[in-house]
């Protein structure tokens, strides 16, 4: 609210169309370079680093979903990790018990997470702010004991161990490289899907809900419908990420999906940059590396270091790392002129 009154009073009109398109071109250029690097990287790095990058991509897919809900539709979720877990377990159970070929587990995991997201989203999305935060937190909290209960299916607290997908011989790739490329393809696909969704009429509706509910309503946007849809889609993307996680790790157990995961994901997308397209990737780096860096800095209290790092980033870049990068990029063409 204070934000809007601030901009309300601003009368100057700074961003001329010319510069906006220059920034857009810059952005696509950067994206192309990034993609080339992403294809090149696994041939240059040691398997352990390739594995780490793979996990960054997995988290980025989950964060694409969370970004849709939090950054674009303006809702909050402290239970995103639960849908990640649902996707991971769906894939694991199908591979283990049904002997389903692994690529087929992804669409099933997506559908299951979407439907559970829809079911929980219908009541949850009637709530706002703190109440919504609490209800989604409850989802994350109840999930772990629930997984332990259905032992015949989920393997209980022992979890399930699976054979990782092997690269077909014609690719000539090592296992870590193969998994990396699978994750990269899924991530690029998810990215394109979300980007085209956001450019459509539906994307505009989500932004309208986020920016001004009352105005959105009188435009004819059904608030509950679009909020619930955003929740279900975000759950679906978390489910997709979860299924790839299962392929990459080859193991699922309740302890991998505690409340911590949900909180890390939310912290990741806020730090990465809410509502920006590069936010999920930067957030993925954050989720992957910052907890272990915190551990390295101080083994006794990683939580404290983790919290301090978040505070530090938010202090330097209140709109997230993507916002910081955006501001730096915008400065470049101006300096050259």
């Amino acid at each position, binding site marked *: 609210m204070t934000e809007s009154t601030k901009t309300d009073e601003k*009368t100057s009109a700074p961003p001329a169309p010319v510069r906006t398109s220059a920034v857009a071109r810059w952005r696509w250029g950067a994206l192309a370079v990034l993609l080339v690097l992403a294809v090149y990287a696994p041939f240059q790095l040691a398997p352990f680093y390739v594995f780490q990058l793979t996990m960054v991509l997995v988290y980025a897919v989950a964060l694409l979903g969370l970004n849709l809900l939090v950054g674009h539709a303006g809702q909050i979720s402290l239970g995103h990790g639960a849908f990640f877990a649902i996707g991971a377990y769906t894939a694991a159970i199908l591979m283990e018990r049904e002997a389903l070929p692994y690529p087929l587990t992804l669409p099933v995991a997506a559908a299951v997470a979407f439907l559970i997201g829809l079911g929980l989203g219908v009541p949850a999305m009637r709530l706002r702010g703190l109440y919504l935060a609490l209800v989604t937190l409850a989802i994350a909290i109840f999930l772990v004991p629930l997984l332990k209960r259905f032992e015949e299916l989920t393997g209980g607290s022992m979890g399930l161990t699976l054979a990782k997908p092997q690269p077909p011989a014609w690719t000539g790739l090592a296992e870590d490289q193969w998994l990396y490329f699978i994750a990269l393809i899924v991530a690029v696909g998810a990215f394109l899907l979300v980007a085209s969704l956001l450019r459509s009429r539906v994307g505009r509706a989500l932004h309208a809900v986020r920016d001004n509910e009352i105005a959105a309503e009188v435009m004819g946007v059904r608030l509950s419908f679009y909020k619930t849809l955003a929740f279900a889609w975000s759950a679906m993307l978390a489910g997709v990420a979860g299924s790839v996680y299962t392929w990459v790790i080859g193991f699922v157990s309740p302890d991998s999906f505690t409340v911590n995961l949900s909180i890390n994901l939310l912290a990741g997308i806020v730090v990465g940059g809410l509502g920006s397209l590069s936010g999920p990737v930067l957030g993925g780096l954050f989720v992957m590396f910052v907890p272990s860096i915190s551990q390295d800095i101080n083994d006794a209290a990683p939580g404290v270091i983790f919290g301090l790092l978040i505070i530090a980033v938010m202090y330097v870049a209140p709109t997230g790392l993507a916002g910081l990068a955006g501001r730096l990029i915008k400065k470049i063409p101006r300096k050259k002129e």
Partner: protein
Amino acid sequence: MSDLVVDGLVAGYGDVRVLHGVSFTVRQGEVCAILGPNGAGKTTLLRALSGMVRTRGTATLGGTELAGRSPDTVARLGVAHVPEGRGTFMPLTVEDNLRLGAFVRRGRAEVEADLERIFTYFPVLKTRLKQEAGSLSGGEQQMLALGRALMLRPRLLLLDEPSLGLAPLVTRELFRIVQAINAEEQTTVVVVEQNAHLALGIAQQAHVLETGRIVLSGTAEDIRADEQVAQSYLGYRV
């Protein structure tokens, strides 16, 4: 005929009743001004018409019931509401704001044509299309709000204090445009306004609302001529 017929409309927030049975009719293509002091329930009346508060009583547009419907249904029925404070989507571009106005409409080509038509009323918007709406001036935002409402191709246009926070010159320009829209598009308009003089200038009928009841109705000229009304209800001298 698409007249707006409001009959015994009761509305409020929770247990607090704000409108106590409001009745009036606006003929198709006419402009109706709703005047009254702060807190009279003018905004609540518009909200009741567009489904944003719970109501009793009826309000029909061309025979179709509006009261008790959800806001998105009312929008689909052709009612565009420019809410108090304009309701700009600040971080979105001017273009996205305008396109959201046509959210419930199908037919791409028509929407594109209407976009061009709106630039004839508000040329300034065309030069600001890719700009964040939040960076527009107050007057430009009000024009955006009006243009966005027109993107619905409304049968009924509800305007809540369009003059709020605007310089007199801009306000006059805005009312001139509302009058032009009303004349050219045959859009029925209900306008709530503190600036009674301007509102009465473009209205055919006017109603004075006080603590949730209509205390005076008449043609715009009658209301304007009524010296006593001017002083007691409108707070200004003609």
